[in-house]
């Protein structure tokens, strides 16, 4: 309900400050007043930054773009949880009504050795692009496609493929995992394409290469602690990891495919 009468919040924001990837970082505390519960989390950070600018200090750098929960640009650890306390919610879709007056909110960047900090809350997530480059596609050139309806796809398979395809590539799964594994991210794409007829020709090669690239990037291994699923703002389930494991075993033992990415 849009209610102007709602009590404004007074908060302590403890936020990670780091000037560049080669500099040491530290936490800094800032006091914020008059925060409306209807504000989004990023609007709260906007206000913090305006306050810092008023005092001639440098604002906190953070990645964001769509502010609609779909581009995957935003994402920070909020009180130790990737994207904060709400289920299936990105940082930009989290609202301040989730916090209490007087709270201290601790904000950190994703922590993973594969994601070096660039500045404050911004990290380098390019390893995720490289996992995609290793095989997260169907090799079809523009102009080669047959009619869209020539291959029926059972609705259940399409829906399940869509569940994996919904991944927004934010990296929360890596940040939430104690091993900093990128299994949920990788499996979402492997699983999507494994369930569609279009993904069949490269099915074995794809899973071998994407897993090899994931290892080469320095992500940890999956030990089935499921933190990734709990943190995922797009609701991608660990059943995709189970499918990736099956795909990997099948490709390793029942196909002639070999990874073309050098193994670590």
């Amino acid at each position, binding site marked *: *309900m*849009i*209610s102007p009468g709602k009590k404004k919040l007074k908060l302590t924001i403890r936020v990670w400050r780091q*000037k*560049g990837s080669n500099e040491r970082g530290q936490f800094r505390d800032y006091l914020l007043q008059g925060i*409306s519960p*209807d504000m*989004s989390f990023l*609007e709260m950070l*906007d206000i913090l930054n*305006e306050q810092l600018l008023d005092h*001639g200090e440098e*604002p906190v*750098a953070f990645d*964001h773009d*769509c*502010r*609609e*929960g*779909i*581009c*995957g*640009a935003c994402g920070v650890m909020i009180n130790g949880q990737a994207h904060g306390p*709400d289920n*299936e919610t990105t940082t930009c879709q989290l*609202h301040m009504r989730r916090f209490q007056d007087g709270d201290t909110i601790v904000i950190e960047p994703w922590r993973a050795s594969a994601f070096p900090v660039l*500045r404050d809350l911004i990290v*380098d*997530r*390019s390893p*995720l*692009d490289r996992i*995609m480059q290793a095989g*997260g*596609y*169907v*090799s*079809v050139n*523009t*102009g*080669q*496609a*047959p009619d*869209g*309806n020539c291959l*029926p*796809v*059972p*609705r259940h398979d*399409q829906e399940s*493929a*869509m569940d994996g*395809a*919904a991944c927004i*590539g934010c990296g929360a799964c890596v940040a939430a995992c104690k091993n900093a594994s990128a299994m949920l991210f990788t499996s979402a794409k492997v699983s*999507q*394409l494994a369930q*569609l007829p*279009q*993904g069949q020709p490269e099915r074995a090669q794809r899973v071998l290469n994407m897993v090899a690239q994931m290892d080469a990037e320095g992500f940890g291994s999956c030990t089935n602690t499921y933190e990734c699923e709990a943190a995922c703002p797009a609701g991608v389930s660990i059943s995709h990891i189970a499918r990736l494991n099956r795909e990997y075993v099948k490709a390793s033992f029942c196909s002639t495919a070999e990874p073309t990415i050098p193994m670590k």
Partner: protein
Amino acid sequence: MNEAMNNILNSRVPDGPLSEKWQNCKNEMKLVAPNNKRKYDIIVVGTGLAGASAAASLAEMGYNVKAFCYQDSARRAHSIAAQGGINAAKNYPNDGDSVYRLFYDTIKGGDFRARESNVYRLAEVSNNIIDQCVAQGVPFAREYGGLLANRTFGGAQVSRTFYCRGQTGQQLLLGAYSGLMRQVAAGKVQMYSRHEMLDLVVVDGVARGIVCRNMVSGEIETYAAHAVLLCTGGYGNVFYLSTNAKGCNVTAAWRCYKRGAYFANPCYTQIHPTCIPVKGDYQSKLTLMSESLRNDGRVWVPKDVNDSRLPSQIPEDDRDYYLERRYPAFGNMVPRDVASRAAKERCDAGYGVGDSGKAVYLDFKRAIEEQGEQRIREKYGNLFHMYQKITDENPYHVPMRIYPAVHYTMGGLWVDYHLQSTVPGLYVLGEANFSDHGANRLGASALMQGLADGYFVVPYTIGHHLATANLKPVSTAHPQFAAVKEDVENRVRKLLSGKGDRTVQEFHRDLGEIMWNQCGMARSQVGLESAIEKIQELRDQFWNRVYVPGVGEELNQQLEQAGRLADFLEFGELMARDALERNESCGGHFREEYQTEEGEALRDDANYAHVAAWEYTGNDSTAVRHTEPLTYDTVKMTTRSYK
């Protein structure tokens, strides 16, 4: 008024009947032989639907591509946010659709202010897009038999919209992105993310490169190529509040304008009727609720101005379903400009709901009664979830409150039939060009246009340029690169010298307010004239009082934003000028002086059936207005009626 009659605007529309023009064009264009393609470098700025599809397609053909985007990954381009769907003339539902009908609906939806030949080509290639995306593994919604499903969108009486839940843009973009990543792996695309294009380099009158800022190191870098493709999206953020992503900007297009590319129809902006209303002065952006909701949602306000009851307590007889009342043929499915103006009319007359009175209801009660909550959840679950997240209200039980918001920009850099701007070698694709939507865009047609341009138009037309332009070798060592780089460095330095007392965001809000009030849903001569003055004042203030912290040689988000705002402050004036010169109402451009007694838009075909294309002359306030007449050989220009 500087109305220059000229013959510069050669739109290169091919000869022949409408349905044969594209084929004729393809037959006549020169080709680059397969093994010569690797001798050509092409710069693609932007990796949204237009840029990613173009970059991947050109690399597949053998060209060397350099692709740029300001986000940390190509996959995050703003196209990702598109919800509702993409049109195509497949006629899978067997309800009478055809290429001609899609063409006609689009040109009529654009209020007869788009180029006939371009729109026809768009409809013609629409089917190939669906095939291409399916082949990439895009998980479009399907029927139980496994075949592709369709939904209805505004401005159409057939079901031709393909969709992936409420995430169609995401899935289409990930499809194009996967093709792009494949070409990166193949070594045919060099990807430069976190790079912002800040200028265009023109050598001997031909676009030959760009100047960028590396947004991590702050370095100003130059890149040379044989052609430049600008795919940098729309400029809706000139209004500050819009449904666009925060980084969307006019900078790349504006820099090209200043290097000789004409800017066409800047005043054509689309205000989307179904967005979540503004809630406070801290608001940083507005959220769209997909148009597809109007398939099942009914729009209404109370019949009595003073009715302060909760919506659930207002009986049917006391509700005014004003779209159904005014437009019985299309009802809630009228095009966006019509729906937005109707909402504004009701709110201005005092019937608006919510705290601010700037909202109307979008009600799903009847749909839930008829189809069950589960079915509605399947269709719109993620949108309802998003609405609840933002407003803390449950739309399954209380009607949504919605209000129009800036959403899309039909204007953009002028391009000919080949998508080439007035600077040879500079091609403009997607929302950044002006080409296909006239004065109003129909739902689900921007995704179609972006992918049409990138997959199926530019891969042909660029070859013709490369094969015929007789391009000399040019590298970044050419003095023109150093000169433009110096311009950019001076500009960055000037921004960083701003150590005043007001922040970039404060200025941006001020600009947004001027634009929304005077150049938004309703415009008038008096309002636009005062807007131009106010923008000029604000621009002066900006350069005197803005505070930009830090230095250039680092990741500096305030500097990025300051640069974009500086361009918006110049562009806003051109937009208001364009609106002022267009003395008619058409599509999204509504001039209060030109309306029927019933408040409908009054077009002036005798005097304004043309594209206005603005030429930069070295000064922000003296741009020259050129025109490209719009002739309709196949369709008849009619008064748009949805009654």
